[in-house]
């Protein structure tokens, strides 16, 4: 029998070409799928993309002050610092007028900004403004604005105040990033190191990275055997053991941090026991808290479950027969572990390691409480500038650097281990 193959288009029962009909159905599915994920998309945009975008914008934004003193800055740019010690009369005149006619609140905001560039701006401008208002009220126009302002306050003859304008004359500026790295601008607008006794951001960055790496490492060392035990014990025992892991995990962060203080302080439990055992003399008690050691110990314990749980869920599904097979084939237990078991736990180690590292690098409350003299991490300074100095530009720069560091680590991780090789369960 001969089979007739139609060369005409395939039609559905409705007479519409099949291709078209399929396409239509597919499009409908696509739209439906989009609407299904739309809430999630919206959520991500609102809670993630917009805030991070805002942070990145703020870290380079310096436009507010430029709207308050536009003419002064315009004239300032013309000042040849090699030629004259002080800015020309026009600069003084425009600043005078802009202070006299400006909106009080806008000037107030600008003042906060100026004070980051040089401490003392705030009082100087406020005192000067009061005098300027008096002069304007009297209705007299100064012969020389420069002399008048210097007469009001001798600091107007101090070029270092004027030099600090360099940091503010552009609407977009990288000064906050430089500040976050212990650097600032000199009178020529070149990047120089901050005063020696003020340099502490770089130190804090290094400490933050160091502590995060150590914490991740210690968590891995401590968490691996526990996770292995959990995964290999009979269910009865492993459930009980799991509770020991989860109970502290569910306990308040503050309670755990305070408990560590009680344990570690010089008159605390550990020192007490060591002295009682005669290992330490009463005068030789070790300082284990209110410093970097305290931060390390407390953070390791607090972040440990984030390492154990992903490790455990990966280890649980590794068949026991693999190790047996390897040993059957002649590998010694250590070799079997190294070549057969360990590689299979890499997804768990990666997930745990990345989780712990990300959490550690931005950690705030625990270092704040047990950090004392040299255990504060970068989060301390972000909080300080957010709340106390209101220097949100610097805050945003610190936050952005943290983000970049994270992305670099992510990239490195992807190169070395591969991001597909991550598994939470």
């Amino acid at each position, binding site marked *: 029998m001969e089979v007739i193959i139609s060369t005409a288009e395939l039609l559905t029962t409705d007479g519409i070409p099949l291709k078209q009909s399929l396409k239509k159905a597919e499009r409908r599915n696509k739209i439906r799928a989009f609407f299904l994920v739309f809430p999630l998309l919206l959520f991500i945009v609102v809670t993630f993309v917009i805030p991070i975008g805002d942070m990145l914008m703020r870290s380079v934004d310096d436009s507010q002050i430029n709207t308050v003193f536009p003419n002064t800055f315009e004239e300032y740019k013309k000042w040849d610092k090699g030629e004259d010690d002080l800015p020309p009369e026009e600069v003084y005149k425009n600043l005078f007028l802009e202070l006299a006619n400006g909106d009080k609140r806008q000037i*107030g*905001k600008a003042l*906060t900004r100026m004070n980051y560039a040089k401490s003392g701006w705030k009082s100087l401008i406020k005192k000067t403004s009061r005098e300027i208002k008096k002069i304007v009220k009297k209705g007299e126009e100064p012969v020389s604005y420069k002399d008048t302002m210097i007469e009001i306050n001798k600091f107007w003859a101090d070029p270092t105040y004027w030099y600090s304008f360099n940091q503010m004359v552009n609407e977009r500026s990288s000064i906050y990033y430089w500040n976050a790295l212990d650097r600032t601008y000199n009178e020529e607008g070149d990047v120089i190191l901050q005063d020696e*006794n003020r*340099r502490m951001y770089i130190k804090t960055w290094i400490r933050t990275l160091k502590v995060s790496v150590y914490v991740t490492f210690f968590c891995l060392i401590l968490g691996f055997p526990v996770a292995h035990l959990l995964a290999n014990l009979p269910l009865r025992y492993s459930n009980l053991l799991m509770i020991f892991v989860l109970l502290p995990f569910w306990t308040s962060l503050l309670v755990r941090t305070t408990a560590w203080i009680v344990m570690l302080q010089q008159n605390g439990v550990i020192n007490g026991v060591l002295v009682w055992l005669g290992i330490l003399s009463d005068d030789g008690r070790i300082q284990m808290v209110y410093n970097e050691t305290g931060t390390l110990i407390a953070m390791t314990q607090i972040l440990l479950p984030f390492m154990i749980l992903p490790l455990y869920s990966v280890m649980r599904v590794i068949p026991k027969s693999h190790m047996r097979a390897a040993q059957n084939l002649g590998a010694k237990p250590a070799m079997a572990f190294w070549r057969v078991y360990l590689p299979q736990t890499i997804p768990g180690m990666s997930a745990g390691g990345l989780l712990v590292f990300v959490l550690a690098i931005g950690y705030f409350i625990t270092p704040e409480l047990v950090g004392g003299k040299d255990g504060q991490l970068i989060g301390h300074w972000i909080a300080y500038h957010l709340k106390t100095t209101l220097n949100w530009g610097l805050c945003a720069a610190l936050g952005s650097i943290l983000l970049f560091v994270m992305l670099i680590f992510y990239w490195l991780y992807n190169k070395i281990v591969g991001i597909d090789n991550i598994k939470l369960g």
Partner: protein
Amino acid sequence: MSKFIKAFLFASIIFAPFAASAVTVASWGGAYTESQKKAYADTYTDPGAIVFENYNGGLGEVRAQVESGSVTWDVVDVLPSDAITGCDEGLFEDISAEIATSAAPGPDGESMLEDMENNGLEYHSGWDCCVPQIFWTYVVFYDPDAFPGEKPSSMADFFDTEKFPGKRGIHTWATGIIEKAMVADGVKPTAVPTVLANQTGAIDRAFEVMDRIKDDVVFWSAGSKPLELVKSGEVVMAVAYNGRVGAANLAEGENFEYIWEGQVLDQEYLCLMSGAPNRDQALDFMFHASTPEAQAEQAKYITYGPMRASGIPIIQNNEPWGPGGVDIMPHMPNTPERLAVSIVSDPQWWSDYGAEINERYSAWMGN
């Protein structure tokens, strides 16, 4: 669903906006806010109209609320440097005209601002937007049992670990400690702000003094810590908020001694948010909370001193003022004789130089 429930839900949606019209006061929480509730809200004509909310200080949340246009607080309890910045930036409303007309005068007819000046304070721009609360101080205290022989009595003793061996507890930021170091270096306490503002190298001098105890310092950042440190014997002396020490002495039966010399008085204000949802009632409450009587009342519950000078005689003349018949005056930081050996911290100077000094302080701490 029954009709009743439906009606109830409907009604609650309709009336919810009206129910939320209480004046919201953001304050620091803990024993301090408790004392404010008792002294200010409970004595107010309509105690139910005042709601306290806790916050962590600083202007971060204030600025976020004002900038985003969704102001939910009416009144904020702030430090003087924040009062100044907030008022300059327009985060707080300028109420200087209302203060001039409506703030309760002192007993001799002096205006509220004059009453504050009688307490050693100077005008700053925070006074345009805020009303005074209390003086709190960074004071050094110790457990007398830790010193069987001679007891420390001055700032020089605090910074001298040879004469008085043992660790010292100080805080992780610079305010207060810089001033104390200047006193230990021989500057007359009341002159410290002037010296700091005008003498070049004054800060270096303070850091040199602080270097003397650096190896013997335990740093704290939470207000409850210095008391734990002294109680557990971790340190022999510590800087603390005097209200915490007072509470330990009065309520917990401790016997801590204060070193009043070189105490650093800091101020506390109630400021009106720009765009406060219940502006008029909030203002009324602020004026109630800044009367000398209300301020003296607060001292019953926490040992911070009235910022209006006329609040002190009220306590003095009515001892025992504290609950349970205890005398409060021994714990008040701003009696005239204690003011003579104290520093009134200069908020304007700190808001100028605070960031720079704190960075330096942190570098000093970590070295």
